[in-house]
C-alpha cells in the first residue's frame, strides 16, 4: 500500500531515530564485556549496576566510533562536548537516570544520500543502554505477577542517530534505514541486527495536506524490529492518521507502540504523560575535548562507503543497479569483488558468479564470503579457466566451486584430479556426435527440417556421453558439419 492508495490529499512526513549498539569490547562507562549471549546478570559490575559511590569512566573507543560514524554521515564533529543525565524511573535503569548527551551532541548537521536525495542527519549522540525486563504473567511491567531484570545490557554503548523530517515515503524510510545499517556495518561500529535489537528504529510520522509547508502533529512509533515491520508500522500509522484527519479529527502528539501481531500501532503515552527528563550536565564526567588530529586519524580508517560504490560501480564495472545492490550490501562482499577485479577478472562475469552460485552456496551453508575458504585469487583463476575454454560453466558450478569454497583447493588441482578439462579435440568428439545422431533418427529428421530446438537435445546427449566435458562450441560445430 502506498500513500496514493490511501488518500491522495495528504503527504507523509517521516523522521527516523535510530539507536545503534556499538561493537566495543567493553561497556561505555565500565570494563564489563559487551556480550549478548551471557547468563543474566553476569556481565555486570558495581558501576553499571549503579551501586552507591561508584563513578563512570568514559570508554574512548565509543567516542572514536561516534566520530567515525559522524564523519561517514557528513556531520560536523564538535571540539568539546559533555554528557548529561536523562532522568526517569524505570526498573531496567539502575541509577534511574541514563547518561546521555542533551544539548551538545558529538555530531550534527550531516546527511545521507538516499537514491540521490539528501536526507538530513540532525544529530548523533552517545548514551548508555538500559537493561532488560522479563515479565511473568504479562508482556508488560503493568499487570505482571512479577518481573525480573537482567542488567547485562546496561551500559552497552549506543549511538542515537536522528534524521530530520526529510523522508516523504515509506520506501524512502526503508531505504534510509537500510543504507544507514549498511554504512554502520561498513564502518564496523555496529552489527545492525534489527531482530536482535542491536539496531533499533523509532519512527516519527505526521501527515499534512499536499502543498502545505507546515508540519502536522506527529506520533512516535516504537518497537519496530525489522525492515518489514518498519514498512508495516508506517503503513498502519498513515492509515490511522488519514482516517482521523478525513473524519475531521485531530492527531494528538503521542508515543505509540507497533504491535507485530495485529499490525497496528497502539497508544503508549500521550504528550501530557511524557516524562520530564530533567536533563542536567553529568557532574561525574569531565567535558570531552576532541582534537583535530584525532578526527583526522579516524578519517583515515573510513573505507569507501556503499553509496559511493553505488555511484562508481556502473562507471568502472558497467554493472546494472540490481547487481550492484547485492554486491555492495555487505562490505566484505564488495571488497572481495573488487579484489577479484584487480586480479584481472572480467567485472561482469565476476559479478555474475558472486551474485549467483557463490551467494547461493554461502546462503545454503549459512556463512559469508569472509568465512569461506575461497580467496579472491582462486575465484579469479577459476574464471580464467572458464574463459580459456578449459572447463565450461556447468562443470565449474557443479564440480569445482563448492570444493574451493569449502576446502580452499585450487581449481587447477580439482580439474586435474577429477579430469574435468573440456574435450576440445574434434577427433575425439566426432565419434560421439555421430553415434548420437545415428541413434535418434526421429530427432535428426526434425533437425534437418530446421527445428533448431532439437539441437539442444543432441548437445545434451553428447554431454551425457562425455560426462559433461565436451566443449559445447565444438559439438555444435560438428553437428553442423554432419548436416551439410
Amino acid at each position, binding site marked *: 500500500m502506498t500513500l496514493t492508495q490511501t488518500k491522495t490529499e495528504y503527504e507523509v512526513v517521516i523522521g527516523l531515530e535510530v539507536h545503534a549498539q556499538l561493537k566495543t569490547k567493553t561497556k561505555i562507562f565500565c570494563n564489563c564485556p559487551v556480550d549478548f549471549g551471557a547468563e543474566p546478570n553476569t556481565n555486570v559490575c558495581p558501576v553499571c549496576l549503579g551501586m552507591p559511590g561508584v*563513578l563512570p569512566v568514559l570508554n574512548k573507543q565509543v567516542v572514536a566510533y561516534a566520530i567515525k560514524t559522524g564523519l561517514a554521515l557528513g556531520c560536523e564533529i564538535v571540539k568539546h562536548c559533555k554528557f548529561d543525565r536523562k532522568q526517569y524511573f524505570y526498573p531496567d535503569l539502575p541509577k534511574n537516570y541514563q547518561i546521555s548527551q542533551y544539548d551538545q551532541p558529538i555530531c550534527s548537521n550531516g546527511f545521507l544520500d538516499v537514491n540521490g536525495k539528501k536526507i538530513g542527519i540532525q544529530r548523533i549522540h552517545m548514551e548508555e543502554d538500559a537493561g532488560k525486563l522479563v515479565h511473568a504473567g504479562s508482556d508488560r*511491567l503493568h499487570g505482571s505477577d512479577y518481573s525480573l531484570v537482567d542488567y547485562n545490557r546496561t551500559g552497552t554503548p549506543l549511538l542515537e542517530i536522528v534524521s530530520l523530517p526529510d523522508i516523504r515515503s515509506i520506501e524512502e524510510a526503508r531505504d534510509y534505514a537500510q543504507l544507514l545499517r549498511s554504512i554502520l556495518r561498513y564502518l564496523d561500529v555496529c552489527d545492525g541486527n534489527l531482530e536482535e535489537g542491536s539496531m533499533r528504529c523509532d519512527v516519527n510520522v505526521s501527515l499534512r495536506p499536499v502543498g502545505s509547508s507546515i508540519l502536522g502533529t506527529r506520533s512516535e512509533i516504537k518497537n519496530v524490529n525489522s525492515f518489514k515491520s518498519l514498512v508495516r508500522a508506517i503503513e498502519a500509522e498513515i492509515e490511522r492518521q488519514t482516517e482521523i484527519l478525513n473524519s475531521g479529527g485531530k492527531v494528538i502528539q503521542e508515543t505509540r507502540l507497533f504491535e507485530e501481531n495485529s499490525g497496528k500501532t497502539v497508544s503508549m503515552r500521550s504528550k501530557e504523560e511524557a516524562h520530564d527528563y*530533567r536533563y*542536567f550536565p553529568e557532574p561525574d564526567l569531565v567535558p570531552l575535548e576532541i582534537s583535530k588530529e584525532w578526527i583526522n586519524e579516524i578519517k583515515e580508517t573510513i573505507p569507501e562507503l556503499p553509496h559511493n560504490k553505488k555511484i562508481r560501480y556502473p562507471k568502472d564495472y558497467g554493472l546494472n543497479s540490481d547487481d550492484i545492490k547485492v554486491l555492495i550490501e555487505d562490505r566484505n562482499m564488495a571488497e572481495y569483488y573488487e579484489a577479484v577485479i584487480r586480479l584481472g577478472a572480467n567485472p561482469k562475469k565476476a559479478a555474475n558468479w558472486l551474485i549467483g552460485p557463490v551467494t547461493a552456496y554461502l546462503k545454503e551453508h549459512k556463512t559469508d564470503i569472509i568465512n569461506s575458504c575461497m580467496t579472491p585469487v582462486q575465484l579469479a583463476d577459476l574464471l580464467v579457466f572458464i574463459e580459456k575454454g578449459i572447463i565450461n560453466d556447468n562443470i565449474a558450478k557443479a564440480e569445482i566451486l563448492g570444493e574451493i569454497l569449502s576446502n580452499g583447493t585450487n581449481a587447477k588441482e580439482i580439474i586435474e584430479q577429477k579430469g574435468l578439462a573440456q574435450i576440445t579435440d574434434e577427433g575425439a568428439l566426432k565419434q560421439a556426435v555421430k553415434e548420437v545422431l545415428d541413434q535418434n533418427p526421429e530427432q535428426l529428421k526434425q533437425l534437418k527440417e530446421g527445428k533448431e530446438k532439437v539441437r539442444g537435445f543432441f548437445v545434451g546427449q553428447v554431454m551425457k556421453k562425455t560426462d559433461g566435458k565436451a566443449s559445447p562450441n565444438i559439438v555444435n560445430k560438428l553437428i553442423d558439419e554432419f548436416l551439410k
Partner: protein
Amino acid sequence: MKDLVNKSAKELNKLFLSKEISAKEIVNAFYKQIEIVEPKIQALNSLTKDLAYKQAEELDQKVSRSDKLGPIAGVPIIVKDVLCVKNYHATCSSKILENFIAPYESTATSNLWSAGAICLAKSNMDEFAMGSSTENSAFKKTKNPWNLNTVPGGSSGGSAASVAAMEAPVSLGTDTGGSVRQPASFCGVVGLKPTYGRVSRFGLIAFASSLDQVGPFARDVYDTALILQHMSGYDPKDSTSLNVDVPDYISKLNIGNLKGKKIGLIKELIGDGIESEVRKSVENSIKILKDLGAEIVEISLPNVKYSVPVYYILATAEASSNLARYDGVKYGHRAQGTKEVLPMYTKTRQEGFGAEVKRRIMLGTYALSSGYYEAYYKKAQQVRKLVTQDFLNSFEKVDLMITPTCPTTAFELGSKVEDPLSMYLSDIATIPASLAGLPAISVPCGFDSKNLPIGLQIIAPALSEELLLSAAYEFEKTCNLFNKTNMKVSAVVVG
C-alpha cells in the same frame, strides 16, 4: 591507656615504629576509650573490629620483620559512614541503606590502609550528608563533646566529635558545603576540605557530585597534613580527580612562612549574622597573624552573597539525581506489601528517607524541572562561575583569605530542627570555597563565653594545600590552644 588516646597520630606512629607499643595495643586503647565515651557522645554507627585487629596484626608482623613502614602506620582512623569500606556497612545514616554492605573500597580509605592506617569505626552523620548538626541521622543524635546539650555540627558531626572525644586521633569526613569545616569549628578540632579533585571520590556515596570532597579531621594541623598526604592523588576510577602530583605537605610545615604573606579578610563574611564573640575571636586571630608578619587586607567578593541560594539549588539538583537510585529494586530498603512498581518506589522512598533528604530531593527536582531549569539551575551555574571568578580575581591580590568558619558556635540540640533556613545559614562562610572548588581549613582560634570552640577558616588558591597547611600550622603554634582542648574535652566526656 588513657595516655595513649591523648596522643597525636604523629606520636602514635613514633611509638609504634620504635616498637614501644604494638598496633594491637593502640587498637585496644582506642576501643576502650570508645567504650567509655561513646554512650555520651554517640558519634559512631558501627565498629569495624575485625578489620582493625586484622590490620593491627599485619602491622605488628611487619614491624617485627622490620619491614619499611611509613608515617601513618599504626594510626587508627574513624571513617564517616558515607565512605565505602569493603565488606562493612555504609549506611549514610539512612534507613534506606541501613543494611547496605559495600562490596568495594573507597580510594581514599584504600590509600590510607595501604599506608598502614587502621580502620576503627564508621561514624554518624546527617543522612546522606545533608545537614549541619548531624541531627538528620536516622539512627542517633551525636553530642558535642564540649557540651553534651549542643550539636557537633554536620554533616560530618560523628567524625568531628569522635576526634574531639579522643575516640581516634584522626578521622575522615566529607565536605560538600562545609560538612568538614563547620563541625571542626563546633568541636574545636582541625578540619580540611581539599581542592575539588585532590582526593578521589570513588567509593564516596554521592550527595552533590560537583562539590563533594573527602577531608580529614585531626586535633592538630600536623596530623591533618599527614592524613591528607596519604589519601590524595589521581585516581583513574574518578574522572574528576586531578592528575597532578601530591606535594610533600609535611616538609613544608615550617614556622616563618607567614612573614610577608598577604591575607584577605572577606568583607562580606564578617558582617551581619556573625555572632559578636565569633567576630571578636577572628579579630584576635588577625592580631596573631599580623604578629607573625602577615599583612591583612580587607577584600570584597561581590557575588559571595549569592552563595547560599546558589549552593542550595545546585547541591539539591545533583542530590535529587544521585539519590534516584535508591528505589528498592536492587539493594537497600524495599517497602513491603506493594503490588505495582510505582507504589513500591514511592513507599520505599517514603519509608527510607528522612524529612531533610525528602525536602532536598523535592527542591532539586523542582529546580531541574522543565520550565524552571533556566531560572534556577542554569542561573545558579552562572552565578557559581561568578563566585569562582571573584576568588580568582582576589587571589591575584592576596595569598590567602580568612573568614570565621561559622557565624556561631555550637547551637543547642533541637534548636534549629524546625527552621531549615537558619540551619542552612550555618554554612554561609564555608559554601563559597566549595562552589569555587578551593581548599579551605578550619583551625581552632578561641572560645566563646560558654566555653564553646570557635574556628578560623583559611582559604587558599586551588591546589595550594601546602601553603594553606603551613599557614594554619604556624597560626596554631602561636594560638596554642591544643593542650587546652585536650583537657577540657576529657573533663566533659570522661568526667
